[in-house]
């Protein structure tokens, strides 16, 4: 059975309570599918289900975490989400 690619954020989780400004680590796990090659990662911040701001892009393919300096200016709230996107190439095509 062929293996597909996937990425899953492990931190922050639903009980995270991060202070702004401060620095926290975003972590993730990945599964790389057959004939797939990871190119990089993109991290973004979402609030209330909508895009808020970029966190980082072009993160190394081998990385499994990113140290995020939470900027000041964010409002005090509990509906933030981190979005991760793993770009890859399909060598089998």
């Amino acid at each position, binding site marked *: 059975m062929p293996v597909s*690619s*996937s*990425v*899953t*954020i492990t*931190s*922050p*989780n*639903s*009980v*995270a*309570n*991060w*202070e*702004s*400004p*401060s620095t926290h680590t975003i972590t*993730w796990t990945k599964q790389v599918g057959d004939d*797939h090659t990871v*190119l990089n990662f993109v991290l973004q911040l*979402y609030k209330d289900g909508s895009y808020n701001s970029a966190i980082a892009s072009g993160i190394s393919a081998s990385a499994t975490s990113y140290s995020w300096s*939470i900027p*000041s200016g*964010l*409002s*005090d*709230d*509990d*509906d*933030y*989400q*981190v*979005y*991760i*996107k*793993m*770009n*890859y*190439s*399909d060598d089998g095509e």
Partner: protein
Amino acid sequence: MPFVDDLSPNFSIFVDVPETKSFTQGDSISVSESFSKSVSTWKFVLSVATSLSLIDSGLSRTVTDFRSNYTNSDSLTLTDSGLSRSTDTWRYIFSVSAGLGLTDSGLTRATVEWRKELTKSDSLGLTDSGLSKAIDTWRHIINYNMSLAVSDSLSRATPEWRKQLTKTDSVSVSDGLDVDVETIIHIFSPSDSVTVSESLSKAVQAWFHTITLSDSLAVSDSLSVQINIDNDTYFYDTGGLSSKSRLTGYISSGSFVSDTTRVSNSDNLVDSNTNSPCTFSGSNSEACIVFDMTAQTEVNYMALYGSGGSIYFYGSNSQGSGYSLIGTASIGVSEWNINRFFTANYRYYAIQMEGLSSNATLGEVLIGKTFLPEIKYDLGSSSSVQALLESNESYNGTEYVNQVGDAVNLYERQYGNISPTLKNDFENLWIKSNDKKFLYYFDGINYVSVSPISMSEIAHNRYSTSVSLRT
């Protein structure tokens, strides 16, 4: 470009809220924290009218004041603070009605500041004030009826006490060491209560040497209670009372009002006869007789023989006014009553009976200074009772005796070697009392007359004599 993605669960981000956010009126802030908190914090705290103890912080100063005078890096403990704060700062603190722990301020406040800042409503711990306050400051404080502990008194001058204390002030005797007798006399009136343990700083003259530490004596008692009169004490008319002019009337509020109807037969007071009384009229509640000694005369006892009643003894240097109470006495019926007190020195002495509802009588009065010979009489002296008997013989030769009068007490006092001082004392006794009786205390009160006293010089300035007394 193919990709896969994921979205985390919702999580919280909170903004770094200053500490001020957590402060409420119920928060307690310790002083050690206070100076490291930012001005913003202070501003917050002050803005919500938080109730904070001023001794913690100096919070009565505005943020502006802190900002201008102190920086966040200042480390200032409160006990230190008073020393470096300028007078202007203190003045500022007071002006905002700060409740200020005076222990902080202490000795560095100038007297001028105290005088300026303190009001009746200020709370002043006297232990804070201490020795550096000038008398002027005390005077200021006292004027506001502030409560002073006498333990502070050592730095107060006696003149201050004399000037400021009233009967309502509380004075403990342990403070009395620098209070002189004059002050005690001023402060204490017969209505004051004083324990004997206080008396050590009072002059022996005032209390008499017969009072011991174990005695419990209210002051009101002391002027009238006779304690342990030494044997061989003479109470005679040292001031020549019997020859002085007299006025009759009454004393009210320290002033003498003449009224010849209130006392009759005043001559009988000094006639050496206890059986011929002077009468104080019961038509009025008070009646008195005033003796004009013609000059200030020292007196430390008053002896009365009467029919009962309340006697008040006053003195003044002015005939019509200024009479001060010297002592009081409640006299028994047909008995001598001796009252001793601290030495008074007035020209006019008044003996007033008070609370009269009917006529009252006094048989005799003696005032003067007590005389106790400086040495004890010699061995061979005698005290005896002589019966007055008449011996007869009947026609048949039988002898018999009849008692022809009351027995008399005889006192023979031999002195083989006395000083010129004691010689003069006995000569004065004879000069002042050769024609009248007086009191001699020996195991009781004896109303006696004295026989002529002769002196023999046995060596240069040494004399021998004998004194014969007879009731």
